[in-house]
């Protein structure tokens, strides 16, 4: 058993009485690829936002690399080594693709030349190299999703949180993206947590899967176990879940 990079212990969050997440716990081993799945409204993005510091959990603890991070601001969480993407993409529309990624790269290096070099490398890795000079506002949705990933990667995270980056991609584009994450995980040892509806990607990537339903973690395990789990089949995958 490897050391846990991220430990989430019994976190809960309510919005005006609605319990979005209740006592969710899981841990991500260092260097692993993990997926969080579940129906819409299950609380996946809420968990993401708590880990990323958008809001603090009402109860529970989040420990990253041995240090508690619940209650930190998003910028502090990012500085601690957690990069994230947004489900609804948030590009810096008026800036070029390269400048978007440079903003991320400037977290670890204060001067622009090394940041530009890093940003260019990340763009190449994601296949956005030829589009570096375009304004981000001119990108198509799949490219904007790639840009989200590129920006987060440029902050050189130890843990990468991916919020539905495959949604809207064609199967071949999806496979390319999967390859990018595998390679990243292999070469940099980056731990990955993805929220995903595209089961094709989840099954291809994830070593561990957590299933969320009505704010609770109802199952955890390897992909092969999850697809046979009766509770998961009932609430989420459905009977015809052939993956």
């Amino acid at each position: 058993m490897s050391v846990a990079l991220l430990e989430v212990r019994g976190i809960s969050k309510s919005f005006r009485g609605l319990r979005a997440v209740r006592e969710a716990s899981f841990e991500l081993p260092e260097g692993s690829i993990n997926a969080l799945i579940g129906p819409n409204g299950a609380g996946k993005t809420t968990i993401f936002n708590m880990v990323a510091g958008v809001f603090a959990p009402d109860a529970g603890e989040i420990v990253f690399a041995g240090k508690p991070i619940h209650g930190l601001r998003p910028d502090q969480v990012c500085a601690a080594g957690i990069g994230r993407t947004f489900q609804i993409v948030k590009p810096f529309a008026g800036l070029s693709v390269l400048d978007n990624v440079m903003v991320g790269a400037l977290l670890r290096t204060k001067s622009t030349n090394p940041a530009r070099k890093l940003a260019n490398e990340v763009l190449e890795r994601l296949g956005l190299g030829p589009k570096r000079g375009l304004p981000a506002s001119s990108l198509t949705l799949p490219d904007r999703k790639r840009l989200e990933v590129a920006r987060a990667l440029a902050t050189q995270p130890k843990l990468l949180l991916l919020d539905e980056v495959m949604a809207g991609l064609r199967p071949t584009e999806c496979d390319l993206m999967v390859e990018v994450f595998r390679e990243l995980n292999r070469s940099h040892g980056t731990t990955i947590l993805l929220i995903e509806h595209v089961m094709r990607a989840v099954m291809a990537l994830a070593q561990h899967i957590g299933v969320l339903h009505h704010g609770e973690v109802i199952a955890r395990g390897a992909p092969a176990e999850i697809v046979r789990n009766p509770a998961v089949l009932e609430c989420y995958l459905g009977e015809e879940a052939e993956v």
Partner: protein
Amino acid sequence: MSRASVALASLGAFLAVLPLFAGNYTLSVATLILYFAYTGQAWNVMMGFAGQLSLGHALYVGVGAYAAGALFFHFGIGPWAGLWLAIALCVALGLVIGFLAFRFGISGVYFALLTIAFAEFTRIGFDHFSWTGGPGGMFLRVAQRDTWDLANFRGPPLMYYYAILFLTAAALGFCNLLLKSRAGYYWQAIRENEEAAKALGINVFRWKMAAVAVSSAMTAVSGVFFAFYYNNLFPEQIFHISRSIEIILGPIIGGLGTLFGPVLGAAILTLLSDGITEGLAAVGWEIPGIKQVFYGLVLLAVVMFLPNGIWPALARKLKL
């Protein structure tokens, strides 16, 4: 050298030799243009770069002017010392406003209202502050206009022209550096999308405060220039919201967030205002308020047809 640097160098050279063949009137118009270019550039750091709309920049011009002006008026202390007091006061004020707004999540138009409020109550405060003359104003001694007294910043119009030319050029260079530095990238990221900026590790509060500090410090300098160039200060004039609007029109017309937008905008607006006055006088239309109508129509046209300002479109045309 790129086309842009050749163009910039030519413009600089032209402005440097302009006094050789320009009369006093032309020189005063040029001084006015450069004054608005410089002040617009200062405002642009906050709005154009970092996306924080200040509608109360007259506050910093006024406080800067009164700070250096009062030191000179009461104690005979020249502007080179007064400058630092002006900058310190303006930065402190800016940081108070920034803290109130950014700490408590006041943004957009509400932030703009806060900036107006501060400018307005400072104006009222100075109206009741007899040490600086109250509503009757403060008048700096104009001892001589023949020789350059750089220590006290007293001298002929030519001295002021070169001073503001230097300031404008320095501000341009400084803003260019800022824009290409980490600060510039971070400010633009905050302007474009604050949530995304935070997620990339940017301490949004700190960088917004930095933008306010830089902008208010630069504007303080323009206040000191104003005090020693015009020599008379009235709260009613210097803090008035119309002064704040005057400052921001140039960068908006010229191109928000661009380096040359404030310069171009200041030139166009000042020349236009002068041109309309003279044009109307020539055709004999001396109807009160008609100048403002023409002025407004031109602004309307620019905003309608070039919503990003004139400079971006012009730069494309000229391949700069």
